[in-house]
């Protein structure tokens, strides 16, 4: 199966019109070819969106319609029956009575038959779910001083030590090499991140004690032992590139038992000690993992999928599994987001300024040198990312549509440098939107008019003398700063700055969104610059999504 053939049959595949053998070939090709998969998803998305078109919605007849049809049908039926020979007319009546009785009994039979099939299907699914998946053996031993990775982030008074080498815990520092046998200890409120050599990221939460223990009988395997606290694991998919590092053999060991995440899994293990008792859980955010635990001397294996949480400990039945709706990485992991993580999330130039539990303060710059603008990093479902590049390198903003939407927690600033070719009559608006329920929006238009709306009513409007000279670059900016316990919005152009307007007290209670909207064709920018705090809630969700890709 090649791409040309696949494209030819894509609609047939989508519409379930292909024989099974050919459908399997298409499915296999789609799994291997991202371009065809993209085309398929677009086609499927189009079909799905069609259902939302109001003119295509199903309609039902009114009672008047049904009455009219039945009345007229009765007349037409009588005409036909009248035209039948007398003996046939009698036969029709008799047949009709018999058929109606049979029809009723067939219906009830069908219902009970479908119930039996339902039970059989449930049994098959149950048995399949019980099939155990193999897991790697533990027949190896790491040589001492084997480098496993590096401590890439340290937050608080984190310590590292190595009991097997007699090295007692001492203050850790970012960039420190992590060897087999090393222990990382985080204090209350502290966190650390280890980047393993195979690309796996280990996030060690507050009050945690984690050791990378060599296994007893293997040359290349180790156990990540969680004595207490929280460990987040982001295990990448195997990289098919021959030169890429191969995934190492390791498992996560704790009082819960062994946890074996599959490649491409985000997992969080939490163990709280209470004397000799413990409470523990293993939550899979994306991917899958196996938990091997021991109950009454017997090994029990549990398979966890996305959103499955395995729980064990005091006051709970052994090995309980529950489903967590909307499972995602915990907020503390946001503090351990590296610049590389953010670069993966945002296309553009990201400058990381600071991290905190409420979010990550960044400076995002989209300019002529930004290569890719259309990556889907936007929060779902925020709309299309439709910025594009003009041949001269400027950023084109399409007409009447959301070009970019950035979640933020104030304070924030957004500055646009308009391309000098943009003529005066071309308009745009950009601004900040907060709390749709209580409704406050601040926007700045091309005419350098700032408007504040509260509950859909204009609360403020001010303007600067906008420059509209086609031969000079133009700048428009919106800044929302903290001011006496609240927020104040002001606007700026190339030569002027407004005094500002104090926003309603509810502004900033919850994270909001920044937006940019073209209101006519031909809008283009030389640069878009945004600085502010990306809220941890959104980042944690975005990081969860990133793991699922």
């Amino acid at each position, binding site marked *: 199966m090649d791409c040309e053939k696949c494209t030819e049959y894509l609609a*047939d595949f989508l519409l379930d019109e292909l024989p099974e053998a050919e459908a399997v070939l298409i499915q296999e090709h789609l799994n291997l070819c991202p371009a065809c998969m993209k085309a398929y998803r677009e086609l499927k998305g189009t079909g799905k*969106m069609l259902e939302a078109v*109001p003119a295509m*919605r199903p309609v039902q007849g009114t009672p008047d319609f*049904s009455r009219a049809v039945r009345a007229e049908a009765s007349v037409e039926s009588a005409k036909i029956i009248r035209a039948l020979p007398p003996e046939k007319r009698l036969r029709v009546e008799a047949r009709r009575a018999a*058929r109606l009785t049979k029809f009723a009994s*067939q219906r009830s039979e069908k219902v009970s038959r479908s119930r039996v099939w339902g039970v059989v299907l449930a049994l098959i699914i149950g048995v399949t779910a019980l099939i155990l998946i193999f897991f790697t053996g533990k027949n190896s031993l790491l040589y001492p001083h084997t480098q496993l990775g590096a401590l890439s982030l340290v937050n608080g008074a984190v310590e590292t030590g190595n009991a097997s080498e007699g090295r007692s815990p001492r203050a850790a520092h970012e960039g420190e090499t992590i060897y087999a046998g090393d222990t990382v200890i985080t204090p209350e409120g502290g966190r650390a991140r280890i980047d393993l050599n195979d690309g796996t990221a280990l996030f060690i939460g507050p009050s945690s004690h984690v050791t990378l223990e060599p296994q007893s009988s293997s040359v290349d395997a180790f156990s990540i032992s969680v004595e207490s606290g929280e460990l987040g694991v982001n295990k990448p998919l195997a990289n098919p590139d021959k030169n890429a590092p191969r995934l190492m053999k390791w498992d996560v060991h704790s009082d819960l038992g062994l946890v074996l995440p599959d490649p491409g899994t985000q997992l969080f293990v939490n163990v709280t000690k209470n004397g000799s008792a413990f409470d523990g859980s293993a939550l899979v955010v994306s991917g899958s993992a196996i938990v091997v635990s021991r109950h009454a001397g017997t090994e029990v294996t549990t398979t966890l999928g996305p959103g499955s949480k395995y729980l064990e400990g005091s006051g709970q039945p052994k090995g309980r599994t529950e489903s967590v709706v909307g499972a995602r990485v915990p907020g503390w992991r946001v503090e351990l987001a590296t610049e590389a993580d953010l670069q993966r999330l945002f296309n553009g130039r990201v400058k990381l300024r600071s991290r905190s539990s409420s979010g990550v303060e960044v400076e995002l710059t989209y300019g002529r040198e930004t290569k890719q603008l259309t990556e889907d990093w936007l929060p779902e479902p925020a709309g299309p990312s439709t910025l594009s590049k003009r041949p001269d390198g400027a950023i084109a903003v399409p007409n009447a549509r959301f070009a970019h939407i950035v979640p933020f927690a104030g304070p924030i600033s957004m500055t646009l440098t308009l391309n000098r070719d943009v003529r005066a009559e071309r308009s745009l608006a950009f601004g900040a939107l907060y709390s749709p329920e209580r409704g406050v929006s601040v926007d700045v238009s091309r005419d350098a008019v700032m408007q504040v709306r509260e509950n859909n009513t204009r609360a403020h409007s001010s303007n600067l003398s906008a420059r509209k000279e086609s031969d000079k670059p133009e700048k428009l900016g919106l800044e929302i700063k903290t001011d006496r316990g609240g927020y104040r919005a002001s606007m700026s152009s190339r030569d002027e700055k407004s005094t500002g307007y104090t926003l309603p007290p509810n502004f900033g209670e919850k994270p909001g969104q920044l*937006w940019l909207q073209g*209101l006519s064709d031909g809008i283009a920018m030389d640069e878009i610059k945004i600085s502010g705090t990306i809220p941890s809630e959104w980042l944690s969700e975005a990081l969860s999504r990133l793991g699922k890709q």
Partner: protein
Amino acid sequence: MSDEDLMHLCQDGDEAAFEVLFQRYEGQALSFINRLVGDQSRTEALGQEAFLRIFKDAKSYQYPRSFTTWFYTIVRNLCKNELRWRSRHPTVSIEDSLSSSHGGGEDSARVGDYLQSAGTSPLDEMVSRERDQRLEKALEALPEAEREVLILNRFQGLKYREIAEVVGVPVGTVRARIYSALERLRKSIKDYL
């Protein structure tokens, strides 16, 4: 009892058999008419005529041929007649002429204008409304031959073979028309996918 058996009984004027067919096809037929003709005020009138044809045209049904394709052929022909009549007697809606005068520019809707949308975010509201409008326009702009096969397949759930029988063209043509229609629609909302 199958649709075909019921229709066979209708050929002898069986009202009870008609009732079962009516219940099975009422929603489907009215939705199909409304989708194809796009005029709710005419939907029920055409629907009424379509169902009466079950008795009126009963002789043209050849048992045990598919009732679905026979009935859809009738409904489609009624809709085609309606559209043909309408194309010869065009009317202009006052609402349409008013809305077409509304242009873009600084007066265009901004995000802030959707603040009071209940339940969903104003951003989502505006994007989905714009996308649906664009898709609706693209759907209206499809050539009639493509539009009807797309509706028969995507919304009425008919297979290529059945559509070929209803429309009276080879299966290959149906396939090509559906693909072409989906491609046109995909292109029209590419930015939203």
